[in-house]
């Protein structure tokens, strides 16, 4: 019983494939339309995903630099160190004494010793703080707290950049969502029309089949398979388009990234993302066909 059922489905599957191949140009065109429609949101999604990975590289845990006044003594330093240790928002911190900072500067500047002319050390003592939480609000709050402490000259952190980037990323995500909804609707519309035309050309077959005892699901099946298969092939086309686009722009993006001293390696969609895209494309094709069949099949009543 089940094997007969499977055999029937297999038969419809093969039959549908043959039907797709029998009108190669039409099939190819609608598959390409679906592919392009999918590649747009998916491509932007990849772009955002990669931007996020860059922002992760630079600002995932923003560091706060704390510069003390030049006349701060050992006692002040100990006091600040103790307060930092007590603050639960701080994950870890590192103390860089003015002497260590000067030593570092001498080492970094190489053969030209720009410090040799100095009569005294102009650098302040500093703490470099890693926070537990990178949310801009937390950082702002922490800044306010530290500012009230004595012997603090300057606090510096790069939250504004993080805020801007995360705002852009949020906008991008919204854009991907909007594009996905719009283009999915377009795909359903394309499939609706394709199936409508097919039903019209298969009118006789549908009529006769109904007359000799075909159930509705038997009549629908080839159309639903057709929609799902076109969706699937459209999804595969989208993956190819994306892979080609990444390949074509990879070098340029790398150069751009190097100008910003970022280590960029374009990440492709994960296997999970790929599979979900294919599944979604198949489902959309099926859905378009399903709506079309529901709308047009009942109009064909046996005469």
């Amino acid at each position, binding site marked *: 019983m089940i094997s007969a059922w499977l055999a029937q489905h297999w*038969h419809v599957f093969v039959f549908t494939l043959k039907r797709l191949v029998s009108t190669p140009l039409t099939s190819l065109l609608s598959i390409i339309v679906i592919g392009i429609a999918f590649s747009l949101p998916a491509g932007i999604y990849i772009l955002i995903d990669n931007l996020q990975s860059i922002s992760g590289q630079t600002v995932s845990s923003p560091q706060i630099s704390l510069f003390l006044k030049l006349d701060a003594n050992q006692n002040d330093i100990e006091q600040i160190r103790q307060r930092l240790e007590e603050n639960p928002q701080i994950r870890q911190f590192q103390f860089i004494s003015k002497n260590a900072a000067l030593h570092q500067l001498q080492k970094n500047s190489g053969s030209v010793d720009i410090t040799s002319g100095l009569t005294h050390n102009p650098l302040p003592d500093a703490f470099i703080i890693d926070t537990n939480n990178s949310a801009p609000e937390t950082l702002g709050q922490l800044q306010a707290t530290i500012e009230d402490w004595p012997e603090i000259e300057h606090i510096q952190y790069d939250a504004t950049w993080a805020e801007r980037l995360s705002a852009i990323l949020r906008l991008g995500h919204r854009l991907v969502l909007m594009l996905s909804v719009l283009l999915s609707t377009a795909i359903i519309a394309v499939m609706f029309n394709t199936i409508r035309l097919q039903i019209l050309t298969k009118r*006789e077959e549908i009529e*006769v*089949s*109904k*007359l*000799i*005892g*075909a159930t509705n699901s038997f009549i629908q099946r080839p159309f639903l398979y057709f929609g799902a298969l076109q969706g699937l092939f459209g999804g595969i086309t989208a993956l190819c388009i994306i892979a080609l686009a990444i390949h074509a722009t990879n070098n340029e993006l790398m150069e751009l990234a190097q100008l910003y001293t970022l280590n960029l390696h374009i990440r492709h969609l994960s296997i999970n993302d790929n599979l979900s895209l294919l599944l979604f494309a198949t489902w959309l094709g099926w859905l378009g066909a399903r709506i079309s069949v529901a709308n047009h099949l009942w109009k064909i009543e046996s005469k």
Partner: protein
Amino acid sequence: MINFKNVSKRFPDGHNVLDSIDLTIEAGEMVFITGHSGAGKSTLLRLIGAIERPTSGNISICGQNIAQLKPSALPLLRRKIGFIFQDHKLLFDRSAFDNVLLPLQISGFDHKLVAGRIRAALDKVGLLKKEKAFPITLSGGERQRLCIARAIVHRPTILIADEPTGNLDTAYAKDIMDMFNSFHQVGVTILIATHDASLLEKTKQRILQLNQGQLAA
């Protein structure tokens, strides 16, 4: 097998095609339905095939009341019936073999397992050598016979034929009547609508006369 109780069929334009028909056809009977064109022969057959529903009255076929049948049960009832259409309703995009395959596909048979049954049906109507031919290349008589092969391949309990010998010369018509007689002998219930007087003269079977939507005695 087939039971009509006070069945009327009115078309949307108000014309009464069938008017208060009472009719019983026993299993294994062979019945001719005759009358001039427009007398309601085709409508009667279409009611039996559950292709149309009566405006009023009760029809039961194989013990099932058509009016109370769920739409999902209708296909199963139709599979018990072999319908030979006046206009054949063959599919021109596939071979004779594939045309006969259709009812078996619909009933859920694996098409690899039924080739023998299809060839047996084609053989019975004398079209075995034309299994690969497309209907467009067949003559009128051959198309009629192909339609018969398609109607009998799933071994229906009721066979309904609407003008099966219309437009055929007498030799072909005799062939086709011989086929119906052989189906009758193996117990199939057969209804044949015809206005072919020569068929009616020769037969010993029951003849129903339809006149302006009513059965004449």
